[in-house]
């Protein structure tokens, strides 16, 4: 199957990546090239095969519910684009 320009717009919206009209067309061609390449997977018989999500079978470890991190808010906010009074600033989301 082949992606339409509308498909590309929808994927770009889900990805939160703005694409100009010109970029949408070139992106559509490139994505279709890649999808054409991965299409060969469909021909493989995988009936009864368990999906392999991970390279090694590990179980999520649990740890005691203790505070292990120190307060480093100032350090971490030093690299943020915009903060005020310990808060991250973004455009207004609630009117």
């Amino acid at each position, binding site marked *: 199957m082949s992606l339409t320009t509308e498909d590309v717009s929808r994927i770009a919206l889900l990805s939160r*990546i703005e694409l100009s009209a010109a970029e949408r067309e070139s992106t559509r061609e490139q994505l279709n090239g890649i999808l054409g390449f991965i299409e060969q997977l*469909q021909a493989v018989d995988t009936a009864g095969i368990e999906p392999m999500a991970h390279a090694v079978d590990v179980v999520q470890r649990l740890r005691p519910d203790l505070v292990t991190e120190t307060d480093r808010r100032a350090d971490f906010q030093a690299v943020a684009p915009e903060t005020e009074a310990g808060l991250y600033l973004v*455009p207004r989301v609630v009117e």
Partner: protein
Amino acid sequence: MSDLINASLRELSTALAAKKVSAAELAALFLDRIDRLNPGLNAFIALDRDKTLAQAKAADAALAAGSGGPLTGIPLAHKDIFCTKGWRTSCGSRMLENFIAPYDACVVEKLNAAGMVTLGKLNMDEFAMGSSNETSYFGPVKNPWDPTRVPGGSSGGSAATIAARLAPAATGTDTGGSIRQPAALCGLTGLKPTYGVVSRYGMIAFASSLDQAGPMAKSAEDCALLLNTMAGFDTRDSTSLERAAEDYARDLEKPLQGLRIGLPTEFFGDGMDADVRAAVETALAEYRKLGATTVEVTLPNSGLSVPAYYVIAPAEASSNLSRFDGVRYGYRAPDYGDLNDMYSKSRAQGFGAEVKRRILIGTYVLSHGYYDAYYLKAQKIRRLIAADFQKAFESCDVIMGPTSPSVAFAFGTKSADPVQMYLSDIYTISTNLAGLPGMSLPCGFGANHMPVGLQIIGSWFGEAKMLQAAHQYQKATDWHTQMPGGMQ
């Protein structure tokens, strides 16, 4: 001083212990070489002479106090994917152009604790997505063997740095071949450990079920010493494996008598260039001379590894890279409307073309209605690929073949067609999907005197065996000691 730039880590350690050179002098020697040679290579993208020399002086103090270890005072450089406290950590991206890491990655922490001295941060394909270093926001790294050719990727800065003797060793990461392919293209030795052996904490995530850090250096012996320090359980990485510590150098001096080398039919087909084939065949003849036997094995699903990888890796990347939203760190667009517009513009401007392409593909294969057809299907095929290896290792101890189908290619020759670029990792990707360890070591030269890499794939936790095979070969040959011209 020229003997110091070609010295092994063990020789440097001996020279430091014998006070023939100090850590500060060694750091200055390499920093001076970086100043002189890096402008032509673009391998280093962050340097801080004061910080480096302060660390070197601390190493000298530890050595004087007798509290140093085998790596104390030896300089190295880090791929810019590792968070390095107080250093700009960009991951080769505009997105993190101004990001000063507030903490150290586990790998950096361990190498610092061992007394190693950080020379700087190394260029790489943006977010480790690329096989030629052409996707870096900071411009491509040049191959020291021929500056019109790529160094490979994504750890291209690490590879070029060691080839040009700007550092004795470097860290790298390998998601689909990013340590082994550049090691092959630049003529050095690099090792990707079994998944879970080295902590991923503080290593900027690309595809979490595949990413693994490893050492890059001039020889297998150097890689073994570095891996001894880099490996180990870490509670901060949920997939770090709880295993007893190993000495990866323990088998280096054992002869290869009786070693069974598996040669996958699929790795010796039409895909490989004639010059690569000739060098690999010559290396295999040398192994037989050293007492090893070769046996044909098959990996019938290995041809599916590149397409399966280009579903799984972008899927994981699209999730991992959603953290770059212009809120907590990283690039924020200068002009925007509402919150969604801020996200979309910041990500459009902060990411380069290949990263965006992979996020879009990953988002698509995970989206409603396509998840089963692409993502789940690829995960099933991943199991078939891993099962092939399991079966192959019933009749051999290690697998060998080419690392890359060609020697280093010229800039621009593959960058226009993403699929062509993806196929340069055709021999390396299957080991990541299976979680196996793999390494590349130089085994000769191909057309235009460009290095050729021999790939060794080990069974799960077979690092010591791979390193033994590589070290014994390096004792019998001198490919790994060759240095590009013009880098004196």
